[in-house]
Structure formats: C-alpha cells, structure tokens
C-alpha cells in the first residue's frame, strides 16, 4: 500500500508553519496571499481558502489584492518552502524508509510491512495526520494500492481517504479532471477534454482507449489509466538529507530580542521535531543572523552574527536549546536589525545512559548546560588569551609554568584521571598576570623585593632554577630564572615564587605558596 501526503496551498502552509501555534490558528481563518515576482510588481502565486472566498485570485497584483479587503500578504520564501518540504519528508520518514518527494508539498511513502508496527491502514493514516500536525502541516492523506491513485485521491479529497484495492476506479470516479492538472503543459490536454464534455474521472475512464490514443496520443492513454486507477510505477525514494536547517526571513527586519524569540523558539521546535523523527539528537547547534546590510556601518564590516554551541551531550529538547541561544543573544546586542535567522543542528545519535547505584550524584546535564551558559553571561566566555572562563581544568603536557587549558565541563562521570594518589602538598596561588617587581640583589641572590609598594626583606631564597622553551620561535620563546623566597611581611613569613624574565630582563612575582 502507498500513502500520499498532500499539503493543500503548500506555499501558504510553508509560510504559516513557523508561526506560533495559536497565531497560526488565527491566521488560517484570515485571507492569506503569497506574493512572488519582482519587488516593483509582485503578483499573487498562492492563496488560502478564505482568500479565494474574498475574491483574491492567482496572478493578481498587490494593489488588486488590496481592493479585495484586508489580507495577510507575505513574500514567497524558497528557503521556507525547501525547509517545509524537508520537514514533510522527515514526517513521512518516521513511518517508512521508502519515501518519494513527488512534488512541492507532496510526498508518497510505501507502507508495505509497516502494519505490524503501526496497526491497520486507517490507524496509520490517523497517526500520519497527527504527526504532520506536530510539524505544523494540515494534510490530505490518501492510501491506495498504487502511488498515482494515492496521489490523485489526496489531491482531490480532503482529510483521510482510503481506497481499497480493486475499487480504485470507483473511488476516483467523482473527481473532476482538473485534479490531473499538475503541470502547465497539461492545460492543453485538459482543455480538449473539457471541449469533449469530459469533466470527471468517471467520464474519462469510460472513453474507448484506441480513439483516445488517436486524438491525444500516449499522454491521453496515461491520463485514462490514472482515471481508472490502473497505473503501476515504482517509487523514486528521496535521499534523506542529514542537514537539519530551519530558516526564517522577516518581512520587516526586527530590532528587539522579544520579536526574535517567537520565531527562534519555533525554529528550534521544528528542528527538534525533525531530529526526533529520525531518532537523532544534536550535540552542536549553529545560529546565523543575517543583518540588514544598509544599517551596518562601514567600519564594522559585518553582515552576519554567527555562533555555535558544542554540547557535551546530545540534546533533543527545544527548551534547553532555546535557553542557550537566548542567554547568548541577551548578552550580545546586534549592530543592525535582523533580516534573517538560520538555525542548524548537527545530528548525532542520542546518548542512552543508565543510572548506577554507585555513580556519584551529578548535575542534570540539560540543566547544567543552561547554568553554565548563565555563568558565562556573568564571567564572560574567555579571557584575554582565549582560554575559557568556565570549564574543567587540564594540565598541558609542557614544562612551561602555568600551562593549562579549560575543557568544557560535562558533568558526566568519566574515568578517573591518572593523577597521582591523593596526598596534600604545598600549593601555589598564582597571580595572573604575574606582578612586575623590583628585586634587590646581594651577589646573585635576591635580598629584597618590592611587593604591593612595600619593600620586603628576603629571609631565605632557593634558586636560581633556570628553564626555557620555544627558543625556535621568537614570538613565543621564554627563558627564566626562578627563585623560591621567604619574605618577612607585616602578617608573618610569606613564601613566594619570583622569576627573572631573561628576555625582558624584568623580575616578576608568579605566586605565593599558601
């Protein structure tokens, strides 16, 4: 059995799909016209039922539409339509792996062997309609024994239609021949049929085949076979794209974050629904904001805002992704109004973890990501050297002092580090950056140090410990003479690490042993 999912007024539904659900329900009752063509003279290319009732027709100009009363006018967005088609394919894919992208807004899927999984065909049809509603579509669903019968039944009948095997001609009989008009080339043939008085599938099916071929050629015979429900053809399965991209172009560029959040939320919801339909999740989310070019000052020379979030665990929850993006946008004001928003999710397999009795309590991974994003909003993302401000420290395999990196903190119980067994040792408190100082020398040994504008006497000194590195690279080369000194301070004896930068010939206090 084959199922056809047909989206009536596809361009209109593609435009409405990204609207919030409550607003979408209101807009459906309102005349909507999609405009296409040059910006100077756009013409209507698609309408919905209320618009047709209001007298809005295809090819009308914007001015003509305005004479028909109030209508919601939108520019056609090929990106939106592509994304909608991909979403439709994803929706179909959650029921069968064999899916054909037949036409914009129409997909056909092969249901063979899925009855055990989803139930009887009536149940499957209902499930498909419900699933499509989650994707933001209102579909006609038709199930038939061959793809073409399912296709024309979905085009001709609203709601769910099931055509039992052997009753194709009977069920299609009442359809008008206009349903066959799937391309402009067919208009001539349909006009001939109309001039013969052939207006329904039944009338076309009853014509003798040989005279039809004599007058209309093989095309006429093909149409007659469709009307009789006798065509047989294999499906041409669509290649499933691994790109989970959703985009939205604003009619008028938006400046405030509030205006952006509605659409952003909807885009993320759609991406997550699509991921879920493939049983996938994302561990990397990318956001691109296209800014209105004329508002951007020349010196800024930036037309995009791009950001990527790498997540420690695959996530499928749109609320968490939305919170992450929102917290970032809240902290970064855009230099110009936003024209277009593109969201892309990198798909990976979800992680299934079983809790263990003996694993330590850990922060909830999803909640932790939001907390870390909020903390980054307070402390900043990176320091002046590009090292992250929030994360898990790692010692770099280098003999250069204070070499470390900060890795993302996942809150996942990894294997214990191969660090030495736990035993207390004298620890250093680092001054970042190291404090410049002046050192008085007695011979080669430090005898006094200026710290916090006070001259302190050196009680004992251990050194010099010479080290150097990166001598082959002038910009990153370092060489130093290190001393551990005991200083007499107002509060007692302080043990400090000082060093002489032999390239700059300058003394620094690196830290204190505490």
């Amino acid at each position, binding site marked *: 059995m084959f199922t056809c999912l047909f989206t009536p007024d596809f361009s209109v539904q593609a435009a409405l799909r990204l609207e919030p659900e409550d607003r979408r329900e209101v807009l459906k009752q309102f005349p909507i016209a999609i405009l296409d063509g040059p910006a100077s003279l756009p013409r209507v290319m698609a309408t919905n039922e209320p618009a047709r009732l209001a007298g809005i027709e295809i090819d009308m100009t914007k001015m003509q539409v305005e004479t028909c009363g109030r209508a919601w006018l939108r520019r056609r967005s090929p990106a939106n339509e592509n994304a909608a088609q991909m979403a439709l394919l994803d929706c179909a894919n959650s029921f069968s792996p064999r899916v054909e992208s037949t036409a914009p807004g129409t997909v056909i899927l092969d249901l063979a062997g899925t009855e055990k999984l989803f139930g009887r065909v009536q149940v499957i049809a209902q499930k498909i309609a419900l699933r499509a509603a989650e994707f933001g579509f209102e579909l006609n669903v038709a199930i038939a024994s061959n793809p073409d019968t399912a296709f024309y039944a979905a085009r001709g009948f609203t709601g769910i239609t099931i055509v039992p095997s052997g009753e194709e001609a009977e069920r299609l009989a009442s359809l008008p021949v206009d349903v066959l008009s799937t391309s402009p080339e067919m208009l001539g043939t349909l006009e001939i049929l109309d001039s013969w008085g052939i207006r329904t599938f039944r009338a076309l099916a009853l014509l003798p085949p040989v005279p039809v071929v004599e007058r209309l050629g093989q095309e006429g015979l093909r149409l007659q076979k469709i009307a009789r429900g006798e065509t047989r053809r294999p499906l041409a399965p669509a290649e499933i794209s691994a790109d989970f991209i959703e985009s939205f172009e604003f009619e008028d560029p938006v400046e405030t974050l509030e205006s952006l959040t509605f659409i952003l939320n909807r885009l993320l919801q759609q991406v997550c629904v699509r991921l879920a339909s493939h049983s996938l999740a994302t561990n990397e989310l990318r956001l691109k904001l296209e800014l209105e070019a004329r508002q951007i000052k020349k010196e800024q020379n930036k037309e995009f805002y791009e950001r990527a979030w790498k997540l420690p665990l695959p996530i499928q929850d749109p609320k968490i992704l939305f919170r992450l993006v929102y917290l970032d946008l809240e902290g970064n004001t855009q230099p110009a109004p936003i024209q277009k928003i593109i969201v892309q999710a990198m798909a990976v397999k979800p992680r299934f973890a079983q809790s263990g009795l003996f694993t330590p309590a850990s922060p*909830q991974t999803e909640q932790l990501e939001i907390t870390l994003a909020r903390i980054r909003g307070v*402390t*900043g993302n990176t320091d002046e050297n590009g090292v992250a401000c929030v994360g898990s420290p790692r010692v770099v395999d280098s003999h250069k002092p204070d070499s470390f990196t900060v890795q993302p903190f996942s809150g996942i119980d990894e294997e214990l580090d191969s660090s030495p067994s736990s*035993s207390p*040792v004298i620890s250093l408190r680092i001054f970042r950056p190291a404090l410049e100082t002046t050192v008085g020398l007695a011979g080669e040994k430090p005898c006094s140090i200026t710290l916090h504008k006070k001259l302190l006497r050196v009680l004992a000194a251990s050194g010099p410990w010479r080290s150097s590195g990166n001598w082959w690279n002038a910009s990153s080369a370092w060489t130093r003479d290190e001393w551990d000194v005991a200083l007499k*301070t107002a*509060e007692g004896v302080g043990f400090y690490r000082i060093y002489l930068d032999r390239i700059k010939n300058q003394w620094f206090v690196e830290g204190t042993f505490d």
Partner: protein
Amino acid sequence: MPSAATLRASIETQIPSAFVVYQRPEQRSIPTGIPQIDSVTAGVPISTLTEICGSGLASSGKTTVMISLLAQATQKYFCALVDANDSFDPSSAHVAGVNFSRLLWVRCGKNQSKLKPMEQAFKTIDMLLQSGGFGLLVVDLSSFPERLVRKAPMTTWFRFSRVVEKQRAALVFLSQQPHATSCAGLVLHLKANPAVWSGNLLAQFQLEAEVVRSREKKPTQSAKPNFSVPSQWA
C-alpha cells in the same frame, strides 16, 4: 486520678510523636585529607557553610587545605571551584590528586563585565547552588582585601547558609578572615610556622589549624592541630 501510663497513652493517641526523642540526622562530612584536621573536625560538614581563613600576605596553608579537600571530594562527588581572582594553580591540584573531570572551575574577573569579580563570584555560587548536583562548592575570596569582603551584607551569608542546609553539598568559603559569623558551621583558621628547608630547597610547611567555630564539637583551647605538608618536589 489517671496513672502516668494512662496519661501518656492518651496523649500519644492524640499526638503520636509527643514523646519521641528527636534524633538529629547523622552529620555527613567530606574529609580534608589531612588526618590532624579531620580528627578534630571530622572533615568539612555537608549541608553546612564552612570558612577556611588565613593571612593574605603571609603563607598560611589555606590553599593547600582547599586543594587537599578538593582532591578528597572529587573522588566521590562533582565539585565546583568559584575562583574569584583566578588564582587556582591546576599544576598544584594535579600533583595533589584532584580529579579534574569532576571539577568545574569558574574563573571570575577575566572579562570586561559590569560586575566586579567578587559580585561575579557571589552570583555564580548562587546559580550553582540553585542548579544542585555538586557535592562540594568552594568559593575562593582570599585574594580580596579584608575590607572588601566585609562589605558583603550579612543577609548574603544567611541566604547561603539557609540554601545549603537543604542540599547534600558542602559550601566552603576561603577568605582572610571569617565573615559569616553564626551562619558558618565550621570555621578553620590556618597559619604557617617556620618552614623546613632541606639544603637549598623548600622542603615542607609546618602548619597550625585552629578550629574557631564548630557546631558539632565545641572547640577547646587545645584544638590547634599542627601538621606538616611536603612541597611538590620534596
């Protein structure tokens, strides 16, 4: 006249828990890894605010105790270190045995922000406390001068104390002087005695820890354990 047993029975029918002796839940704690301190304090108590204090200019051993505590805690729990002045040394922690994959390090004051580093630290610890899931939360304020930390209102310490009471986490503040007063369940004051030099090398610290306040055990005059900590290269 009813007997005592009858009275007791009639009261117990009305109020079943009237004569039940309240058993305080057993205080759980995280050992510091320094036996001399643990024998006096039984470690850093969970669900309690703890202060570890020591001089800012002179060496006192507070960072050593903190890192030793982190090394112990990361064997069992996920921990967070809010480093208000970015003075944590990962190399020292690595040698002490801290498990980095269970440690969240928040470096404050590294970016141009509207908030001062200390405000960033307080805000961060608030968020981490709300988030939950950490067994030990350490806030290192010891690089800030005494007068600056004193400006934190008393209500802040009360709030932290109340929040951590309901969590299975220990909250530790590192500072030069104690500030949380009665909000703290344990206050340790550390100072260093003359260090031991082995030839030309700094070999070990002689440290003294004083239990200034403890809810569990009343500090006595003699509760000043002395201990020594070797240097990384000794």
